[in-house]
């Protein structure tokens, strides 16, 4: 039941990514290419998402618990630390190279193209390395 709900929500998420053309690395690279072929698409996608999520999150969190669980599972860390800053920087540098971030890469597996497959496998490798070398050692 929980898995089925998650699947349906994942379908909505993936449909949104595809409709917004976030599965196209050129869109991403063009957004960051302020000195070249700039394209505002990513800003409109984030804007559209936040227009839903800001009031939606406020509304959902007025409940004492979610519909199918006993409690909300929200991050409780609040301080800015070196890992957050370094991690975000490494992620950003990688995002700019390939034009894929995690969600669109997985959605683009449906394209049958080789790059999303290679990217996703490499990304899993990167997560594995971070867990092995840093996170699981703490």
């Amino acid at each position, binding site marked *: 039941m*929980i*898995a089925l709900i998650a699947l349906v*929500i*994942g379908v*909505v*998420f993936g449909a*949104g*990514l595809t*409709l917004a*053309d976030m*599965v*196209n690395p*050129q869109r991403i690279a*063009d957004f960051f290419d*302020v000195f070249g072929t700039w394209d*505002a*698409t*990513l800003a*409109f996608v984030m*804007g*559209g998402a*936040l*227009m*839903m*999520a800001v009031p*939606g*999150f406020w509304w959902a969190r007025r409940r004492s618990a*979610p*519909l*199918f669980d006993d409690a*909300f599972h929200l991050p409780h860390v*609040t301080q800015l630390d070196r890992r*957050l*800053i*370094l991690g*975000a920087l*490494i992620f*950003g*540098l*990688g*995002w700019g*190279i*390939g034009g894929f*971030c995690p969600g669109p890469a*997985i*959605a683009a597996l449906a394209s*049958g*193209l*080789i*790059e999303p497959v*290679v*990217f996703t496998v*490499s*990304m*899993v490798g*990167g*997560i594995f*390395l*971070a*867990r092995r070398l840093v996170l699981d050692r703490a």
Partner: protein
Amino acid sequence: MTANSLIMALMGGALIGLACVLLLLALGRIAGISSLMSGVLAGLMAFNFDSHLRWRLAFLIGLPLGALSVTALGWSEWSHIRMQVGLPLTIISGLLVGFGTALGTGCTSGHGICGMARFSLRSVVATMIFMAGAAVSVFILRHIIGGAG
């Protein structure tokens, strides 16, 4: 970039935001794709096929299914997609994205949408930094090196 593509971007973004709200409302969880992947990987490595692994995996499987439903309806197609780099740089890019999002506990969805939507300072800072990092990479690739590798 046309008026039509920007309307599609707003609508697509609204669907992404809706999915984030639904996951929080239904399961009380943050729709952060990198964290879901990290959770699936941890579960698989521990041979722990419990409900935590199953719902995360189900969500991730939903992403390409959602993409397929949009292309099946004729609202988008794959032929216009343009890769920016060849396979060697795709591998490097994937390794950096995986490592960085695991270290920084989030990506565009977790920090950029869900975290920003709940006004998390960590997420606002992370989003500004990864946006800046992406701009640096694009600038180097397109204007310093001057071609896709």
